[in-house]
């Protein structure tokens, strides 16, 4: 059935709550309002206010209570109204949730999900546009996913809810209603830790995730007209990275461009580039290239936002340069 990315999220939540009574939701305005973006629309009616819990504005509490409930057997799905606000619950994510199992000698589980609506391109300004995934991708004990398609949005969320470890789930606001595709109505999972090859080719590789996937696919289609065939690898999971898939495409084409909407410096692209440099150096025909948001804040004005973000044109220009080596 043709389903939007946000509807796929809504469907996953409904399925998970029907399948397992231990699954419950907590967050700000998720009940009667159905969430700021309507991701939880209709769930209060079906499951009631005990399982669709409207909280005060208290991100630290939302994450912390999820940790506690998860540790004793429930499966909470916490919503940050915007990913930007996860900073207010940062301590509970990186210190409490991530270390829970480790400091209990491996005798604890923390089956929780923190949903974070992230991303730019929506004129949200400094605090409604952030891509804070790299704050978490260096924290062992966490898993971090970032679906780009509606199919993955549903399958990765169901995976995340079933997972016994804390999963930070970055859903992209720009894709909510712009991505629409056939998604099975039934329950299914997309495994955490597995990248997806979206396009096969032999000349250059794009390694990407989230909204940047679409820039890469567009650029790859354009390059095909110029006789350059591309691989497009969608990481889908950012922690742990699918090193096998990354190295396979790097070794195949020998030319890699990493693209993400997150800031360049300290972004996941640096880690991917390092993996390739360490383990596929002999296969490379060009320097590993990266394209990300410029190293500044998520500026508001239209021309500023365009200037700092990756785009189809910027990816295409970088792809041409890479192919030229």
């Amino acid at each position, binding site marked *: 059935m043709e389903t939007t990315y946000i509807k796929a999220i809504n469907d996953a939540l409904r399925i998970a709550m029907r399948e397992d009574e231990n699954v419950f939701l907590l967050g700000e305005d998720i009940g009667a309002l159905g969430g700021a973006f309507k991701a939880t629309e209709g769930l209060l009616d079906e499951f009631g206010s005990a399982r669709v819990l409207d909280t005060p504005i*208290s991100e630290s509490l939302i994450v912390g209570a999820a940790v506690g409930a998860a540790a004793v057997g429930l499966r909470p799905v916490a919503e940050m109204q915007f990913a930007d606000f996860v900073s207010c619950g940062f301590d509970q994510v990186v210190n409490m949730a991530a270390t829970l199992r480790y400091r209990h000698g491996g005798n604890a589980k923390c089956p929780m999900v923190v949903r974070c609506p992230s991303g730019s391109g929506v004129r949200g*300004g400094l*605090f409604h546009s952030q891509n804070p995934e790299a704050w978490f991708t260096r924290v062992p004990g966490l898993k971090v996913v970032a679906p780009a398609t509606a199919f993955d949005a549903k399958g990765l969320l169901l995976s995340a809810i079933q997972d016994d470890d804390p999963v930070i789930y970055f859903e992209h606001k720009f894709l909510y209603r712009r991505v629409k595709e056939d998604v099975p109505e039934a329950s299914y999972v997309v495994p955490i830790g597995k990248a997806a090859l979206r396009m096969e080719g032999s000349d250059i590789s794009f390694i990407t995730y989230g909204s940047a996937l679409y820039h890469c696919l567009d650029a790859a289609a354009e390059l095909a007209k110029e006789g350059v065939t591309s691989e497009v690898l969608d990481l889908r999971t950012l922690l742990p990275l699918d090193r096998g898939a990354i190295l396979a495409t790097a070794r195949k084409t020998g030319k890699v461009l990493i693209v993400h909407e997150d800031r360049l410096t300290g972004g996941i692209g640096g880690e991917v580039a390092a993996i390739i440099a360490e383990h596929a150096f002999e296969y490379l025909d060009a320097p590993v290239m990266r394209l990300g948001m410029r190293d500044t804040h998520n500026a508001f004005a239209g*021309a500023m936002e365009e200037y700092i973000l990756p785009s189809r044109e910027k990816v295409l220009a970088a792809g041409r340069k890479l192919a030229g080596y």
Partner: protein
Amino acid sequence: MERDLELYHNLRLVREFEGRLSKMHHQGRIPGGVYSGLGQEALVVGSVYGLAREDFIFPLHRDLGAFLVKGVDPRLLMAQILGKKTGLSGGRDSFLHAGSLADGVFGATSMLASSLPVACGVALKFKMNGEPNVVLAFFGEGASSRGDVHEAMNFAGVQRLPVVFICENNFYAFSTPQPMEMAVEDVADRAAGYGFKGHVCNGNDLFAVMHEVGAAVELARRGGGPTLIECKTYRYSGHSEHDTATYRTKDELLEWESRDPIYMYEFYLQKKGHDMAALSAETGERVKATVDEAVKFAEDSPDPEGPEAMDGLYATQV
């Protein structure tokens, strides 16, 4: 200008400005979100009126009027809201996420109540240097659920800081009604736990706000430490202009409109013998001209070109 009339002018200017933003938003002339303070004019005008330029305020996303009364140029404020190069942040951020430190206006982030610890820092400087200035720190009853509020008030109590915490209780945190935010009726009760006084006041009554905040400001200036003032009020619009606010009833809105801060103040002016029809018309024309000029300035101002997004990060060359 006589005080009574100056206050009236301020109330009407804020309402005109807010009303214009709402209209412009629906005409698609404003990029980004608009968070209306319509209905809350007495609170911002009554709190900020009479402060010195050296005093600091920490306004919220809904406190456009606080910017105006504190002395921020309406033209620059409008340019800020339209994301123009001439705006307070030069297009770098939206709506009221900007300040004017020269006017004693500290810009907020979207992380509500994160301003309160910062307000304590400004107050700490005033105390350390023996400066007779005060800080007004605004927060919503919604944000009162955040830990930063506790940390800030606790510290302000310990240090007897010259800060007045002003809770704008408009009964809804976005869609969440107060009973789901807290198990008490008055946020002001919490002051007792921090060792200072908390007072509740009618936030739609200009004189009540001026009286309560004025007394707290004087106490703070004299070194008497912080106060928490809770102003009960109501926002006529939704959380943002995108929000149709279906979570509340028409009757409830109507009840609050019957307590409109400007109508109440006009009733006072009438009792004092002013010809209200004439005064209202004349004031209306004046504030309309001010806002017209602000809109014209802002719309005629250049948009940022793009590369400016890289400027303004560091004070020193990197």
